[in-house]
């Protein structure tokens, strides 16, 4: 995709885009005006027909989700999920920091389509700069009458409140976010009832990711056909991907859904540094099962990634080079999920803890080959057995690593065992350069 076809990131580096004057200079808030001239149902059906899928991780149709909001005169809520905490993901950070009004415009159009009167942006507490920029943008938009009572003389009346979190990965889970927004600990809720029926303050609630809402204004401005003109049949439009890890040019890139993953990893991000080969890669954040180098030729869209046994998730590609010991990476990943598990469901709370302990056993040379089986079994016992998918988010990548890179686990185990028996003995197993960095702890990647 050439530079001229960028949509979300088209003007992203223009000076002053974050201010309302700058945004309006590039046609900002025209989509909101256009939407308010239309019937709300028309806007909703446009969103549905566009095929826009949620960009936060689950990939559910945005228009369909909005259509689940019941009709009626009760308070209805929209929560923009800006709690971007999935390791590897930093696309929403860029959008909010450089183009906050695009998000605000998207929120107001979505509010109009869903007949919503109270909107919230739940931004993670660590995003201090972005929260300041958004707060400023909201004030500007209020002054110009884009937020509040009878927006631009229309029927739309919607407030917008910026709510800052305080550092909890689980608050990115939609029902955890709702509890956190209600002022409680961010524990996920049992579903059903789904948030569309009983969400925030038990009212109908639409929850969307930042990038999803940022796509809304252009759909209204340019129409459904324009939006669907790029992407695949079921994964329409463009996607901002965050590429990180063992690549030469980490960063955010806007791509057309359906291009080969190789074009992203090697083409845009420059591939791994010299002398490093790709060992495996996460196609959609750290929660996605890993894929192998040969999978790089797959088309990068929701369906193909799912067929390959992984997921597009949040669109965060983390590339793991062959200089990274996989056991150390798996341990770090499991520690993350152990730390972030809210502790409500037993399989997740215990499963994440035991996975860490078993990986430590491997790393300390105390494991036996049976431990890999047990660990794989723990992952299976977590999946699908909890209220939310945090446990699954550890079980999927760790399970896929054990399955696809089993020889390396076995070798790490054997090397660590020999080192434990006789610390002075030189160990030759003919593997990556683990020997030079020792086999205990995170030394190799620390």
């Amino acid at each position: 995709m050439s530079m001229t076809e960028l949509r979300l990131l088209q003007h992203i580096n223009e000076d002053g885009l974050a201010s309302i004057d700058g945004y309006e200079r590039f046609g900002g808030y025209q989509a909101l005006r256009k939407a308010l001239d239309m019937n709300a149902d028309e806007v909703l059906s446009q969103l549905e027909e566009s095929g826009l899928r949620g960009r936060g991780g689950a990939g559910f149709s945005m228009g369909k989700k909005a259509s689940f909001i019941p009709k009626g005169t009760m308070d209805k809520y929209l929560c923009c999920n800006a709690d971007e905490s999935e390791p590897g993901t930093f696309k929403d950070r860029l959008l909010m920091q450089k183009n906050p009004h695009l998000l605000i415009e998207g929120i107001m159009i979505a509010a109009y389509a869903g007949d919503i009167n109270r909107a919230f942006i739940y931004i993670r507490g660590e995003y201090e700069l972005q929260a300041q920029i958004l707060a400023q943008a909201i004030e500007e938009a209020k002054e110009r009458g884009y937020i509040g009572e009878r927006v631009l003389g229309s029927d739309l009346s919607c407030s917008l409140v910026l709510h800052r979190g305080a550092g909890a990965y689980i608050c990115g889970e939609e029902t955890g976010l709702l509890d956190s927004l209600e002022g409680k600990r961010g524990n996920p809720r049992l579903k059903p009832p789904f948030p569309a029926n009983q969400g925030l303050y038990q009212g109908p609630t639409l929850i969307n990711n930042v990038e999803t809402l940022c796509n809304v204004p252009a759909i209204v401005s340019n129409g459904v056909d324009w939006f669907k003109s790029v992407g695949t049949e079921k994964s329409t439009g463009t996607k901002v991907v965050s590429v990180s890890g063992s690549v030469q040019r980490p960063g955010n890139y806007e791509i057309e859904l359906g291009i080969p993953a190789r074009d992203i990893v090697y083409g845009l991000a420059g591939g791994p540094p010299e002398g490093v080969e790709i060992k495996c890669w996460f196609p959609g954040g750290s929660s996605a099962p890993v894929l192998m180098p040969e999978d790089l030729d797959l088309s990068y869209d929701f369906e193909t990634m799912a067929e390959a046994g992984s997921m597009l998730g949040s669109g965060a590609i983390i590339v793991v080079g062959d200089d990274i010991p996989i056991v150390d990476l798996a341990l770090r990943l499991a520690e993350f999920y152990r730390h972030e598990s809210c502790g409500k469901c037993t399989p997740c709370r215990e499963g994440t803890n035991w996975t860490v302990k078993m990986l430590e056993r491997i790393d300390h040379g105390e494991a036996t080959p049976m431990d890999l089986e047990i660990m794989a079994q723990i992952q299976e016992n977590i999946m699908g057995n909890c209220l939310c998918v945090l446990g699954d988010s550890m079980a999927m990548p760790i399970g896929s690593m054990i399955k696809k890179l089993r020889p390396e686990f076995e070798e790490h185990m054997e090397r660590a065992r020999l080192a434990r028996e006789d610390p002075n003995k030189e160990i030759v197993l003919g593997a990556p350069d683990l020997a030079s960095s020792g086999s205990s702890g995170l030394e190799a990647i620390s």
Partner: protein
Amino acid sequence: MTEFEERHQPPPDTEGTGEEGASHPDRFGSDEPQGDTGTTAAAATTELGAPPPIDHAPPGRPPREDLPPNITETGTATGWDEAADLSKDPAVIPDPAEVDVPDELRRAIESAMAQYPDRRSASIPALHAAQAVHGWCSPLALRQVAAVMQVTPAFLSSVASFYDQLNENPVGRNSVYVCTSVACVMARAKRVYEAIAKAGEDLEDTQIREFECLGACDMAPMASVNGRYIGPLEESDAEEIVDAIASGRPVLPGRGLGDPDYRLPWGGRA
């Protein structure tokens, strides 16, 4: 005796002391007479209705010498094996007339509460504000917030203990969060963290800790110093970071996200 204790007194012994062991269902709800009533009856005769007295202190945390050195205790919550103290008063909502709250803090909390349909939604913004005033979510800070919000301090404690950025211990007003999540750790973030932690050992009023993904993997390895993202970092930056915090200077000017002309090492914009 407090009101709470009075309400929770065991029923008085009115029926004499003949056959309690058999007539009284055991603690687990079984109506079967106890097989060997010797100890049960002896215990029950001491005070009907109360569980048998425990003649030793609660076990507390077991000694960990028995564990292999690699088994860490970081995942274990403390206090799970300590009995609840039923003699304590239940938490009450503080009387606003009895709690002195700094005007600025009160205004911040009240304006936060006004933004939501339910005042309790303001708990996180209110605790952020209180932490800014007190440096941490101290018992006094919780009491002040509770008095303004009209919730129990226990509710606020439940919130403060859940979130990484709210501290129930006096960790220091300055924060240095070094990201050691997946992408950063592949870029040797552990070493950066260790270097900063070592350089900042004597730094006062500053919390230096590892943090989970801060959402800046393009800047890896990076850190957040008082909310400002800096990176990519080298171990050799540690001294400068610590010195700048100690003297109140800006930390690594030009290398922070949002700084004018900030560029990633390969030339890209973040």
